[in-house]
């Protein structure tokens, strides 16, 4: 079980930017590319400190992916940054051919993922990116929960030899994970132990799952909270051992139900341990303009939604 304490509130993208700067100092092979969103991606400090290793590509994401692949072929570790929307669907074929299939050591730094992108609306909000990226052979998919975890995940991403999709977000959210524990790609983290239900949460939804834990405890429901920051490869061992004990699962993610963490866990359970599962995720629809909180509320990505899902899945378990 991991200790956590809210130290401050920060955006996950700033965790990426801070780590990228530090990586730049430590490793001359690290280069960064951006398609006219340097400020949004928090890449300015890297660009300022390492101008020859920063490549401003302009508004040309497809070209950026190709250039990143060429740099990776030359032995560099390129971090290509844009909004998650423009770094997945828009360039799926480029990523597929010259990064994943060619197995190039390219890191896709995807900011503003999910509905919490907010006011820009559905053209910019992508809720299908985890699905797209976990479908891709050779691709690692990471969705950290807060600033600290994003910071550590960025280092782990650089150290990993192969393509990685690193997904983070725009809004300021509680920063609570520990920096003293190592971040291991493919290893989930047990945040709370419990016996009645396993809640598996990723990204911004981890904090909401922890909030739900307190309320559930008062309701005499003892939830086990697992943070899955690496959606691919999935920590099968941790998930199965928990569900063996609790006999039911709720997944929570800022993504469509289709294709996301819930899908991955459901597939795992269907194959190895078919038990009730409920999904806290967005239905099959596009988002809209609004503040991040309003949107999370409207599309059912809340602490209350997790609690309701827990009650429902426990009822199904006992049926």
């Amino acid at each position, binding site marked *: 079980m991991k200790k956590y304490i809210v130290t401050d509130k920060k955006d996950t993208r700033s965790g990426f930017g801070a780590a990228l700067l530090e990586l730049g100092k430590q490793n001359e092979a690290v280069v960064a590319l951006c398609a006219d969103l340097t400020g949004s991606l928090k890449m300015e400090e890297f660009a300022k400190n390492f101008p020859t290793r920063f490549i401003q*590509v302009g508004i040309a994401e497809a*070209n950026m*992916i190709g250039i990143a692949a060429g740099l990776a072929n030359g032995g560099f570790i390129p971090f290509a940054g844009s909004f998650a929307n423009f770094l997945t669907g828009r360039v799926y074929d480029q990523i597929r051919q010259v990064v994943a299939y060619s197995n190039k050591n390219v890191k896709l730094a995807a900011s503003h993922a999910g509905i919490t992108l907010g006011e820009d609306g559905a053209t910019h909000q992508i809720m299908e990116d985890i699905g797209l990226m976990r479908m891709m052979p050779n691709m690692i998919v990471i969705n950290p929960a807060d600033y600290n975890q994003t910071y550590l995940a960025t280092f782990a991403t650089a150290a990993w030899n192969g393509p990685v999709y690193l997904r983070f977000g725009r809004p300021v959210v509680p920063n609570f994970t520990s920096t003293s524990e190592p971040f291991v790609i493919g290893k989930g983290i047990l945040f709370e132990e419990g016996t009645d239900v396993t809640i598996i949460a990723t990204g911004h939804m981890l904090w909401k799952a922890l909030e739900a834990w307190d309320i559930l405890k008062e309701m005499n429901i003892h939830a086990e909270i697992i943070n899955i920051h690496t959606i691919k490869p999935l920590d099968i061992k941790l998930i199965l051992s928990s569900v063996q004990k609790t006999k039911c699962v709720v997944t929570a993610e800022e993504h469509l139900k289709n294709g996301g963490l819930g899908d991955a866990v459901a597939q795992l359970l269907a194959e190895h341990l078919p038990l009730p599962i409920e999904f806290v995720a967005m239905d099959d629809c596009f988002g809209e303009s609004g503040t991040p909180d309003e949107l999370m509320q409207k599309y059912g990505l809340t602490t209350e939604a997790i609690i309701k899902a827990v009650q429902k899945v426990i009822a199904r378990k006992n049926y």
Partner: protein
Amino acid sequence: MTNIKELEKIATQVRRDIIRMTHLAKSGHPGGSLGCADYFVALYFEILNINPPHFTLTGQNEDLFFLSNGHISPVWYSVLARRGYFPISELSTFRKLNSRLQGHPTPAEHLPGVRVASGSLGQGLSVAIGAAIAKKLHNDRSLVYALTGDGELQEGQIWEAAMFAAAKKIDNLIVTVDYNGKQIDGPVDEVCSLGNLYAKWDSFGWIVLEMNGHDFQEILHTMHHAKQLTGKEKPIVILMKTEMGKGVDFMMGTHKWHGTPPNDEQAQRALSQLPETLGDF
């Protein structure tokens, strides 16, 4: 002094390889492959500074080549094998199950000579630019070469890359366009005309050269000239006039052999026009 006769001999054998590979596989793209045979032979036997027996993906301190129009893999595979990257006998496995010679080139099967997958068009130029930047960052003065088709220039990503390379002064890059005027559905001019291609590249800020892709003297002269023009803060493109199907009379003057393999009778007819000069695979 280069022995042109020797290059011609190799090119004839490469054309035989292309016919035999696509015939054996009952699939593949003979037309553009035949058209680019002379270019590939000149490039790999005279121009590139390479070390085939010690192939590495990074290729540091040697010249790199990226094929963007991956469907002309037969000519590339033949030249790679004939240049010593892998056994010539392996050409018989083209497009077969468990082969390293996939329909379109890929490093996934660890075929020496291939660094990045291509096939989905319009992407190779961007990759070549990335590789060229990598060389600059490594202070590696060797060059990066790439080949694209002309129909492929209808892909928007090509022009993203063209704009970028000029804006960022990528001057260790020599791109060649296989300007054969044909694509799957017909003449490029009819499918979607490229307009004034010379003026397009020129206005994008590239040094533009032109050459006849079937005249070894001219190919070598132009490629050497292109080398001399590197390092001048501009990328270089060579518009290479070729004939799709070159070397086989009934495959020339039409787009129909873009992606159609010869049948038994057609293969015999084609091979009768291409004497075996270096020994078949």
